[in-house]
């Protein structure tokens, strides 16, 4: 990859996004690792690429300090036969700039300015002589672990005795398998082997490195004692320092490693999203839980009762008023208002169980094929939303226009007609009673108007009563049809409101988590 700062900046932005989205969702160690890399990258980039920090790491007795001294051309690190020798990292800085801030950041207090080496120009090279990683002193290992994470270029110093140690390969080289661009391997003490042995040893070492996931890493045979191979190593280091790319390459390798660690979170070809039928099943279960059946029945009956109160036969319809209004009994508001608490009994255990099952099915399908933690995170998002479900459903019901306030247009004319018929009936009755009284008092019968052959008062009484009853019957049938229609409409409106509730409280949070997953995976893809 070219030095490409834009690409690196983009990858770092992606890393920041991963950290932001992953926190609280992904495994904490994974997020911590990403955050640490992000923090380190920011700090390292601010310090600039003028210096290249090279760690000379190795086992105890491999000759790290001798090598550093040989490279520096003077004794800067203590060399000894007692093991382990070096206990704290020592920095050797080439060039005019003392690299103070950089070494402060690395927390390496022991510093040494290298004498001018005219043989090659290594301006900006900072060598760190690290303690060993395999001795009985645990603090040495911890210091190595810390600095290995921070430096730009890693030089592993091995020797013919120790080049196959598990402590090196298992603990350091394999975890850093993606860091081939910023890794050099030096086989020190090459003078101890004859040429054939050295060649075989180098071949075996290359094989082990390839097994570690570091094929093609430069392997240099040197001898700090005799000086063989030192020039090649010096030149390699000077070239790397001059190129000023190691710090960026190191960060890129770290980003690659982080991306590889994150990739299992985003399996290829995982299908996410809420299925239509799961969504409908949830809304159905919620509508049911809101008491849609009870409400629809109440709306139907209330409509019929109210219609009867207006259009029923006036002589018997007052009886209707003795029975309470079904809607008022459930305290269902005439005009929608969420502030009112209805008298509905709330979702039953079965209804809650069905909502639960629908929700579970929905989240399980929505995260089908996704690894942990997504099924859990999405489920959590959905469950959080339904904690106060009964109250939410009650508000939804109270806020739904059940269409009870508007009365049908035919009611008033029919009511008026009923009144006219009632008046006619009463008038006929009174007339007939008056005729009866006159007859009893032996008054002569006044002239009686006839309609056809039927006397008018009789017609008024009987015709009015029959017509009124007939009208009441017809109105009842009409009201029954209207009641059913209104019940259906009320159920429809309730379902729509419940759908909005589900959208806001369940589906949106679930979609949000799924979109977090999508964005996170997009960020991981940009990461490397």
């Amino acid at each position, binding site marked *: 990859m070219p030095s490409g700062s834009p690409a690196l900046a983009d990858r770092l932005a992606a890393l920041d996004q991963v950290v932001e989205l992953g926190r609280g969702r992904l495994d904490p160690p994974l997020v911590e690792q990403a955050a640490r890399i992000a923090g380190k990258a920011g700090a390292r980039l601010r310090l600039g690429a003028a210096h290249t920090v090279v760690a000379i790491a190795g086992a105890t007795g491999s000759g790290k300090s001798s090598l550093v001294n040989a490279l520096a051309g003077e004794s800067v690190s203590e060399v000894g036969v007692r093991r382990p020798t070096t206990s704290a990292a020592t920095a050797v800085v080439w060039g005019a700039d003392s690299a103070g801030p950089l070494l402060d950041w690395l927390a390496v207090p022991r510093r040494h300015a290298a004498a001018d080496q005219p043989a090659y120009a290594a301006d900006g090279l900072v060598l760190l002589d690290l303690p060993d990683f395999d001795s009985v002193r645990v603090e040495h290992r911890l210091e190595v672990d810390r600095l290995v994470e921070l430096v730009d270029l890693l030089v592993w110093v091995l020797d013919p*005795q*120790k080049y196959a*140690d*598990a*402590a090196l390969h298992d603990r350091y080289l394999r975890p850093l398998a993606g860091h081939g661009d910023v890794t050099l391997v030096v086989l020190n003490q090459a003078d101890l082997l004859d040429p054939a042995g050295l060649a075989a040893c180098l071949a075996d070492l290359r094989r082990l490195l390839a097994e570690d996931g570091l094929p093609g890493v430069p392997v240099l045979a040197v001898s700090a004692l005799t000086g063989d191979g030192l020039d090649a190593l010096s030149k390699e280091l000077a070239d790397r320092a001059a190129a000023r790319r190691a710090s960026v390459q190191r960060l890129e390798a770290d980003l690659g490693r982080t991306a590889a660690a994150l990739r299992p979170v985003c399996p290829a070809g995982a299908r996410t999203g809420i299925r239509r039928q799961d969504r409908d099943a949830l809304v159905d279960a919620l509508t049911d839980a809101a008491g849609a059946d009870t409400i629809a029945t109440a709306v139907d009956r209330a409509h019929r009762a109210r219609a009867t109160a207006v259009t029923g036969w006036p002589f018997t319809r007052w009886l209707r008023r003795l029975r309470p209004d079904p809607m008022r009994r459930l305290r269902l508001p005439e005009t929608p208002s969420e502030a009112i608490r209805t008298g509905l009994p709330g979702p039953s255990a079965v209804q*809650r169980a069905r909502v639960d099952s629908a929700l579970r099915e929905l989240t*399980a399908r929505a995260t089908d094929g996704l690894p942990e933690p997504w099924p859990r995170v999405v489920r959590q998002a959905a469950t959080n939303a339904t904690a106060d479900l009964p109250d939410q459903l009650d508000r939804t019901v109270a806020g739904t226009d059940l269409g009870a306030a508007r009365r049908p247009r035919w009611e008033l004319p029919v009511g008026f007609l009923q009144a006219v018929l009632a008046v006619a009936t009463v008038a006929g009755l009174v007339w007939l009673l008056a005729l009866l009284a006159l007859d009893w008092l032996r008054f002569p019968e006044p002239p009686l108007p006839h309609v056809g052959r039927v006397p008018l008062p009789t017609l008024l009484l009987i015709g009015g009563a029959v017509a009124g009853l007939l009208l009441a019957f017809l109105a009842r049938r009409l009201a029954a049809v209207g009641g059913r229609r209104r019940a259906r409409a009320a159920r429809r409106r309730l379902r729509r409101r419940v759908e909005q509730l589900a959208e806001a409280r369940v589906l949106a949070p679930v979609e949000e988590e799924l979109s977090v997953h999508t964005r996170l995976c997009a960020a991981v893809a940009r990461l490397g």
Partner: protein
Amino acid sequence: MAAQPDLAGAVATVRDRAAGLRLGLEVPGADLARRSRDELVRQVDDYLLPRLGRLDAPLLAVVGGSTGAGKSTLVNTLVGVEVSPAGVLRPTTRAPVLLCAPGDERWFADGRVLPGLARSAGPSTSGERSLQLVPHPAVPAGLALLDAPDIDSVVAGNRELAAQLLAAADLWVFVTTAARYADAVPWELLHTAERRGTALAVVCNRVPPPAMREVMDHLGQMLAEGGLSRAALFGVPEVPLTGGLIPPRAVAPLRDWLLGLAADAAARAEVVRATLDGALRSMSERVPALARAADESSAAAAVLLEDADVLYAAAVRDVDDGVRGGTVLRGEVLARWQEFVGTGELLRGLQSRVGRIRDRVASAFTGRPLPDEEVADAVESSVESLVRAAADRAAERTAEAWRGRPGGAALLGASRTVLARSSEDFAERLRTEVRAWQGDVLNLVSSQGAQRRTAARMASFGVNGAGLAVMLLVFAQTGGLTGAEVLIAGGTSAVSQKVLEAVFGDGVVRAMATQARHELMERVEKLLGGEAERFRTLVLAGAPDPAAAEALRRAAHELELARRASAEVSRPAAAPARPVPPAELPPEPKLSWWRRAFG
């Protein structure tokens, strides 16, 4: 010196108890405990039992150490010929080589020592573990040298094999170098040797002659600090090899020491005895540690089991509450029941003896389901919803609870998503159970009906209808309906109850309802118990038997007693000054607690 059969028996008992110990739960330290268990079992098999069987077998000196320390070269030099290949490539020795005097071959040819390793005459080419047996006249009788693979190279198989061989040694000849003597890995093994009381010789090879003094001083100081001052220490200078061998002069002290040991039967027996005693002694520490690990594992298992039990019991309670509260009646059961009563099917059935037959005939012609079958479906699906949601919730909560428990997350592992829901065939089994329950309720009604004079009236509207009414009553009569719903639904519910009471009488109806609910709950408990079993099996497959730790402790105690007794028997000649009568044995601290528990 005769072998003590009771001691061997006690060792074998400890071995069997330890080998049978399940430590599958991933609690903190479980990995260590498993390794410790395997090491213990292997040491008993490879070393303790063979050695206890033949105390006069040759001394087995295992030459072990870091890769590149020159173990093979050292062994070759000691014998005087190249028997074990040495080289610059690491690790060199992959198959162990056992060198012994030709007369001693019989001790090692059969599988008594290191029974897990096949014997071979030449270097092993197959991948399996084997032991190359090389009888050589240069090896003195009574001594066998074993060139072990390295303890720290990248080849993991080598490391394990080396640890196994070292555990089988009468004497460890530990080879390190001037560059390596402070490495962490060998020191861990040295400390293990110290804990196990293994006789130890430390050879520091490849020391640059000028640094000899300083390095040996430092190494001696490190050994003393590590409590290993009794180890014999030898320095071998880094000198050019002649014909692949170190010049004899450089290894003379080590050679003389080994030859002296081989020649002196008493000294050899002393080394054997010291190592054997140390190994036996170490058991009294390692076995209780293993028992403690088993205790921890058991405790973690108990917590996990309790999680599952509590959450599934809560699920059963949820279902019971749902049924008892009468809430199951609400909703669609109610609506269907209203339909049922409203259409007058039941009343018509009551009025006409042929009501049921007519319904069936009509149903047969029209294909419409019988009205009471519709109600039955509704009841079934309500109970089903209730139980399935409870099962799902319990599974989810158990999985969630386990995630935070030691050992829980690892148990769930990859099947986490599967376990967090009820099992695949649960819905099917649930449906079967609910059907069977409905059959029970019908039987209940018909048996009650047969005993009473009302049998004739029962027949009039069909056992089916009455059974249904009882089912509905199960939900309705205990908790009753509340609030506004009573006004809407109470009427019809009351009708069904009235009908039933007219047929059976109030007390019988209540008793039937209670019994039907009990039967339902019994089935639900069985179903959910089966679901909880999925979690329980996982735990029980990995957790030790509850009594295993106790048995292990008892076996360790028996072993300790046998060891002391045998020490007393074998000692008098060697150390008559301090015979320890059994009565004066120091009180055994490990004893007190199990005495408390069992005595």
